[in-house]
């Protein structure tokens, strides 16, 4: 991967491993909390760990929300990772309701409410009906819609990637869900995408070769294929 990747640094979590994974695939990595650099980025990565509300608060504190929204509108590739993906949605329900960036209409909801995550699969829930949370582990990615021209362009369906979360995104428009996985009989959002925007619930930087290959392809597929979307 040639070219520059800008990672938003807003005091949330350790950005080193995300930066390192992009360096590994040959990107020129910039880590910044400067609004101008964010607006002008070639490709923007928004990482995030911890609570939804806390992440939004930290962005607000550094006055970066406007810059991120402006970048998102530019049409250049935008990638949210983990809570960085969750805050792309309109509302988060972790520790009360919090407003997100609203790039994708929808809510981020608790996985402990099984009814929110309609089971359509053959996986059998544990017979004691206890949901083990957070979800921590390697789950198989399933196609919710076509992956051509997306970050999963070169990824085989069923590849496993590393998740750790207790909340997940639920876009209002189900066609914005790009991939999901099955857990304890639930269907959980693994990735969303809309035009130049991609959000990954899992950690590509912690998902071995599969994750590395995704990052390698990201930003090219989207542009080359003329946005590869349905909505």
């Amino acid at each position, binding site marked *: 991967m040639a070219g520059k990747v800008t990672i938003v640094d807003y005091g949330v979590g350790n950005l*080193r491993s995300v930066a390192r994974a992009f360096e590994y695939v040959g990107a020129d990595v910039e880590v910044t909390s400067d609004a101008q650099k964010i607006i002008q980025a070639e490709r923007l990565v928004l990482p995030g*760990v*911890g609570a939804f509300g806390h992440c939004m608060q930290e962005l607000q504190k550094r006055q970066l929300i406007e810059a991120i929204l402006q970048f998102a509108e530019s049409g250049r590739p935008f990638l949210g990772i983990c809570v960085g993906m969750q805050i792309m949605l309109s509302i988060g329900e972790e520790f009360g309701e919090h407003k997100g960036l609203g790039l994708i209409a929808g809510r981020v909801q608790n996985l402990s409410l099984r009814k929110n995550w309609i089971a359509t699969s053959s996986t059998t829930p544990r017979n004691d009906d206890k949901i083990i949370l957070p979800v921590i582990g390697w789950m198989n990615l399933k196609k919710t819609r076509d992956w051509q021209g997306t970050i999963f362009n070169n990824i085989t369906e069923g590849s496993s990637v590393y998740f750790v979360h207790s909340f997940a995104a639920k876009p209002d428009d189900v066609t914005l869900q790009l991939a999901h996985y099955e857990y304890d009989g639930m269907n959980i959002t693994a990735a969303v995408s809309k035009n130049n925007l991609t959000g990954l619930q899992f950690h590509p930087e912690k998902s071995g070769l599969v994750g590395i290959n995704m990052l390698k392809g990201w930003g090219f597929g989207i542009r080359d294929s003329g946005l590869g979307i349905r909505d």
Partner: protein
Amino acid sequence: MNPVRLIARLDIKGENLIKGIQLEGLRVIGNPQEYATGYYNDGIDELIFMDTVASLYGRNNLARIVEYTSENIFVPLTVGGGIRSLADVEEMLRAGADKVAINTAAINNPKLISEVAKTFGAQCMVLSIEAKARGKGEWEVYTDNGRERSGKSVVQWAKQVAEMGAGEILLTSVDCEGTRRGFDVALVKAVTDAVSVPVIASGGMGKVQHLVEVVQQGKASAVAMADILHYRRAALPDIRTEADKAGIKIRMPEREN
């Protein structure tokens, strides 16, 4: 069944990978970086580094090992041993750890658990429990690498730490550790029955059948392996194939082209 994580546990003393029996009689195995890289190439799901000495000297070495590992290995990394404060946690996360494992300091100051969870997220707070049997169906929490008694009941403590925000529990049976005679399945079952956070079973794996037992009967979400890997008693790809055959759901990693 959800996929079970296969974790390599590397106990560190100074700059060496070491292994003991019941956390004692430590033997030097080799260079931790080399072993970690080998396990990564073989498709390990996660790595745990445990500093067994937990001295300041040991910690400096540990940070260096973590730094090197996180630069080159793209799977989650947990670091434990001698972590006593938010500043210690931050140092390890900055070195490249994804999670920290805390035992002794949490016993002395349980508030540390919620502080770490609140500051860095529950996903990075792994509560480490060293358990020794004290009668049938009853286990006691030990600290300082299995040396000191705490008087606490393992099951009660596990419930408490899960409520306080621990994201997962690393459960080591001191009795079984390094013996290769299998996990303490009853211990693991008692804890998984009591909490709804993931539990990593550690201590005693000598063959794949032990993994199958602790997952099927003990309901462990993950299995930590040390002796069996470090002494090359079994190779990871073979462990995976055998576990798969026994009906355990595990990750089948992609191979390098």
